[in-house]
């Protein structure tokens, strides 16, 4: 068993493939079979055209920081001793914006629009979190 104390994602039926792919160190999202939009969060119908067919596609894992915040106050015991930490909205090269965290960089060095790429953190035997580092 792991001594990991942070919250773990509780996948929905629609998002399960996202977390399964992350376990294999792939960043994957549904791509609409009708209009080709790649969407986030995962859902049964396309948020651009309403089509109900899609396939899961692996993404490049590169993107840019659309915006970010730095936690200086502790909200959850899992981060005790780990302040400050950065939470970011990352715009993926394929279009969608996803929520993640930036690692391997000091908060003072982060800029909006800077390029980043995905890394996978195997936080437990079953869960890997897609995080981002400077590209």
């Amino acid at each position: 068993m792991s001594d990991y104390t942070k919250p773990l994602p509780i996948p929905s039926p629609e998002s399960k493939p996202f977390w399964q792919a992350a376990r294999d160190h792939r960043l994957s999202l549904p791509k609409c079979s009708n209009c080709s939009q790649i969407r986030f969060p995962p859902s049964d119908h396309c948020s651009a055209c309403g089509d109900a067919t899609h396939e899961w596609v692996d993404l490049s894992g590169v993107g840019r920081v659309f915006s970010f915040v730095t936690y200086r106050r502790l909200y959850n015991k899992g981060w005790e001793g780990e302040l400050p930490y950065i939470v970011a909205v990352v715009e993926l090269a394929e279009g969608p914006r996803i929520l993640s965290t930036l690692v391997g960089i000091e908060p003072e060095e982060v800029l909006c629009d800077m390029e980043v790429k995905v890394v996978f953190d195997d936080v437990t035997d079953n869960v890997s979190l897609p995080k981002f580092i400077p590209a």
Partner: protein
Amino acid sequence: MTSGASRPAISSNPVPVPNRALRDKYAIVGTGVSRLGKVPGVSTLALTEEAIYAALNDCGLTVQDVDGLLMRGPDDIYTFHQVVGERLGINATFSTSTANGGASQILSVIMAVMAIDAGLASVVVCGYGRDAWSRTHANKDVQMRGATRAAQMESAEFGPEFGLFGAPAMHAFGARRHMHEFGTTREQFGAISLAFREFANRNPASQMRDKTLTMDDYLAANMIVEPFCLLDCSLRSDAAGAVIVTSVQRARDLKRKPVLIKGFATHNNTSGWFEGNNMTCTAAGPSSARAYEMAGLGPKDIDCAQIYDCFTYMVLVQLEDYGFCKKGEGGDFVSSGALRLDGTLPTNTSGGQLSEAHAEGMLQVVEGVRQLQGIYEKDRQAPRAETCIVSGHGGNTVCHSSLILGNAT
């Protein structure tokens, strides 16, 4: 800067225009506020009763006159309006609870007008109550979480696992992006905090009545979620507020000068805060545009404002979206002194949620009405105030409602 391929921002239907025939037909006739701030040992429902009876007394109505009840309470009290109705001992021909966060209270006023106009009610109480200070200070665990809701109501994924907790972060994403695109500074956010604190220092009912604030204090305050420090964040308050809406005809016989409802609208960027430029051009833009159109007024005709201030940045961006300055110039506008009593747009004249108390926008509606009734001493009364715009914003940062109030001419 848009995300996704060809996603439409709104339906392809023509943009609806609120019915101008409703302008000046309905009024807010009474306002009431509970004790504010730290009110330990008093429940949400007791605070709510206190505010509703104060509003009824304010205009000379009784609970027996009320047939509409539009309420918002804590998210974990099921059908809050029903529980409030039980306390008041009344049946209502029209009643529901709202769930649009800070946009809910103006939405209630709008729904009250709609209901009266449709013949579903005649005297409507719009109210809000929440024991938010007591809830967030019940023990060390909830104090750390800083949330007024139970932990199991938080997001299941794409949030907590990455360390996203609390309301400040979501709004701080917008602040950071605005700083990046327009060069907005922390000192400009501070100017908002200072302006509202000055009003709160003149408001004997406010939570921050006795605490003055300088820019040095602001810049030295603890950072919470950068770029926000503690003083960018609104208060946690035990608080309730209520207003009474009825027709102008019914309003004539009542105690207080009725304040006319001139215009209103809502807009909801339900596609999400992360979508397009929703963080820097908020739902306040389309909402206010249609409210102005209904009222037949523009930003230049507005004498004072009550702007939903969950966080300093949200005031700045809404002032831009409401047309009081150009997009990107909100920082200069707020640091020009415009928001102060002697400024071009006295704003949040009660101290707002940053310094009076946080009742999810209800106190902003109350204050807008009271300014137009002219009830205050000189040190808090906006000079020559004949019109006021009130904003409500929330529902996880994307829902907006606008209300334009005015005196009879």
